[in-house]
């Protein structure tokens, strides 16, 4: 297992390099333009000047190599410096990765935005998992019971109604008509006392509910299907025949063997927590990483989008590896050499 993990980690380096190159090429090919949001009062000649000042005049490969250098050398050096206070080289001369729209270091933007994304989207995801697992298990155990039918109905509706609709519906009910919850998330709110804590809970309630419903729908379907698959297996019959209690059969045998596809789906979803929930963040104005990414795409902020998607890629590679290792733990028959 250790050798396998090490090999995968080594393999991750060329994989990530290829991914970063493909993403960069893709962003470069895409036809959106950083000067597109400027008012029409700015003439095209000035737009051309702005594009040149952003470095768009340089050849593609040079820009890619510059990005690589800044991402893998300059930014880590900066992190080290700010973490330990050691001076390495001349920090003021070191070019940092900067966003084109804010002209500020991208790492600072990510640090500023990560908290709200991790709390809201992360909590939404966690809620989804916590709802989905029991629903999936009970639905499978009592297949076609009323519980299963209602669970299926709710989760399929949860999955088929887009978040832009559920979000708006909740706002109209709880913000407009009942006036209970704020429709706009205040990112500058600091939790210091009971009052600010309830305010934080209130502003998180709707987005977490929207995301929870959506995630629960998906995961519970996979959980149910996988449990059903295993209930029919011979080893369950054997276990029951041996007189094991239903609890042991379900939670020790069936659940453990059913978790493999669920673990895959959950592991695939974790990087997406970091990537943020683009639509939900926009509806409630949470302005987290998802919003940063989409606004970066809309304003053709190539360095920002490149950096964010690359970090995203690193997480995907990492969590896929974690999932692969978990398979081996859940099912000892799976072996990697």
């Amino acid at each position: 297992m250790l050798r396998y993990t090490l090999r995968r980690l080594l393999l991750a380096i060329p994989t990530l390099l290829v991914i970063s190159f493909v993403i960069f090429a893709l962003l470069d090919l895409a036809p959106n333009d950083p000067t597109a949001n400027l008012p029409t009062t700015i003439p095209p000649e000035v737009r051309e000047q702005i594009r040149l000042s952003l470095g768009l005049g340089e050849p593609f490969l040079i820009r890619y190599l510059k990005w690589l250098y800044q991402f893998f050398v300059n930014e880590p050096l900066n992190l080290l410096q700010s973490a330990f206070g050691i001076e390495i080289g001349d920090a003021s001369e070191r070019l940092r990765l900067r966003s084109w729209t804010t002209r500020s270091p991208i790492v600072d933007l990510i640090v500023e935005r990560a908290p709200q994304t991790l709390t809201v989207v992360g909590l939404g995801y966690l809620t989804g998992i916590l709802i989905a697992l029991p629903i999936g298990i009970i639905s499978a155990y009592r297949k076609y019971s009323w519980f299963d039918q209602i669970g299926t109905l709710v989760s399929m509706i949860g999955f088929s109604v887009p978040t832009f609709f559920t979000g708006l519906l909740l706002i109209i009910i709880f913000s407009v008509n009942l006036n209970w919850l704020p429709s706009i998330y205040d990112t500058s709110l600091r939790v210091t006392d009971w009052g600010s804590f309830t305010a934080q809970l209130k502003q998180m309630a709707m987005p977490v509910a929207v995301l929870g419903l959506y995630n629960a729908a998906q995961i519970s379907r996979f959980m149910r299907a996988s449990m059903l698959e295993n209930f029919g297996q011979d080893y369950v019959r054997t276990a029951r025949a041996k007189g094991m209690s239903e609890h042991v059969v379900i939670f020790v045998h069936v659940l453990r063997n059913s978790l493999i596809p669920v673990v895959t789906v959950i592991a695939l979803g974790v990087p997406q927590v970091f990537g943020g929930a683009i639509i939900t963040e926009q509806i409630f104005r949470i302005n987290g990483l998802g919003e940063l990414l989409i606004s970066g795409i809309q304003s053709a902020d190539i360095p920002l989008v490149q950096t964010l998607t690359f970090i995203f890629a690193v997480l995907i590679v990492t969590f896929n590896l974690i999932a692969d290792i978990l398979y081996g733990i859940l099912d000892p028959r799976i072996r990697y050499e």
Partner: protein
Amino acid sequence: MMKWHGAIGAAAAAVLTISPAAAQRGADGEVKILYWQAPSILNPYLSSGVKDVEASSVVLEPLASYDEKGDMVARLAVEVPTLANGGMAADLKSITWKLKPGITWSDGTPLTAEDVVFTAEYCMAPGGGCSKLSAFTDVEKVEAADPLTVKISFKSAKPFPYGPFVGGESAILQKAQFKDCLGAKAAQCTKENFAPIGTGPFKVAEFRANDSIRYVANDKYRDPAKPAFASIYMKGGGDPASAARAVLETGEFDYAWNTQVEPEILERMAKAGKGEVITAFGNYLERMHLNFTNSRPEAGDKRSVYGDGSNPHPVLKDPAMRRALALAIDRQLLVDTGYGASGRVTCNIVPAPEVYTSTAVDWCKTPDIEKANKILDEAGWKKGSDGIRVKDGVRASLLYQTSTNSVRQATQALIKQMWGDIGVATELRNIAGSVFFGADPSSPDTSQKFFADIEMFAWTYVGTDPETNLGGSTCKEIPEPKTNWLGTNFSRYCNPAYDKLAAELAQTADLAARAALVKKMNDMLVEDGVMIPLIYRGRISAISNKLAGHRHNAWDVELWNVADWTRKK
């Protein structure tokens, strides 16, 4: 919810009571403003959109602003220099601004002419990517005659010399703060760009890029009684409809910028009684461009290229067709379905101010399908079996593109049907704004490349003077591959008679003579079917019933008089 808003307001007020001069300043707590496009930077010269300029205007001020009537009013200057008061040279080649004495920056240092000179230097520095550069193109030099006097000299006569330092886009930066941020270094001054020191009523307390800004009252502001609010919380993100909802229905915010949504939705929201929708008209015009060159894929390399003029559009080259297309459009219907009170029917390329507006082309205000059909019949466009007209083997079928926006898509659908009634087929296409309004020369979908037959978008220009606007339709402004598709003559219209009028306008100072020329050029563009003006659009925003003192302005930034805003008791 109300509890913590109150708590923040109280905290901010507590901070401000330290200032002894504040008899009134800061008494009204916090005002909450919503911009659905979030500000990304507070330096207007590096802005990537209007929202950045708006957000910076609370802190930074220009020498003069445009008021809600489109008249210039002095801000940091004593008065607006004119020929009459001697501030403008008789040869129209220079202008002298006098600063108000005693103005200080929010850090307490005095504002001097050096700051103004520096601001010009900052914008003109090569490699800086200054977005206001075009205002300085004809500037020869900017110099400080004494600490309170600035002289701007132009390379040629400038009948309208108010490009630099007028309006929120051209605010004055503090030299002491930005002196190390010239040229290519401009982008690296994050601290400066996120919290510029200004002379305005507020200063930046916290800036979260693309998210929110908290401003607090500037205790050094020149009027000791202002601003009435102790702080501003400006939030960004979302979409126009939800921005309007936050003011009109939930009452969470006091002001929402640019709430352009279908009129019936706003009407419904306003019924909640918490606020109202306000509109102000500047020179914002929704218009259509007709492509004079062949834009079909079969044109190959010459697609939408004017060249020597031998590449005309197969359908739109016929003036009768262009006239019929303009006649068939029921503009009132477009206004009613998409704009309501924020739109007016217009037939002019220069929709305002009144001195410049022509009445000679008002024929387009009343749609006339019958007449349009007759014109096409007479021009030899015969209806085929599918109801679509054909002439010389060319089918009257047009590709009509615009940016993605629900109101624009409704307009597209309406116009498609109106043109269907005169036997013209239309294929609709919508393109993401970030692509359509971009200037990426490798993209086929930009408004400048115009690989379509018709395109529609809104156009505006700085201030009240239409010279640059009309100058955009001269031959030299035609976007071509050899100029990297730069230029604002989207229609590829080239008429020597028009160019002559444009040259004359650039030399004329007398207002009446200018107005006559402007009208003549306006009529020419409409009669020739270069553009089809559709709707004179207003700036639409939502304002809470609890906010007073706001004067809605479409000629300058919307927050231009934020110092005068107060809380209604």
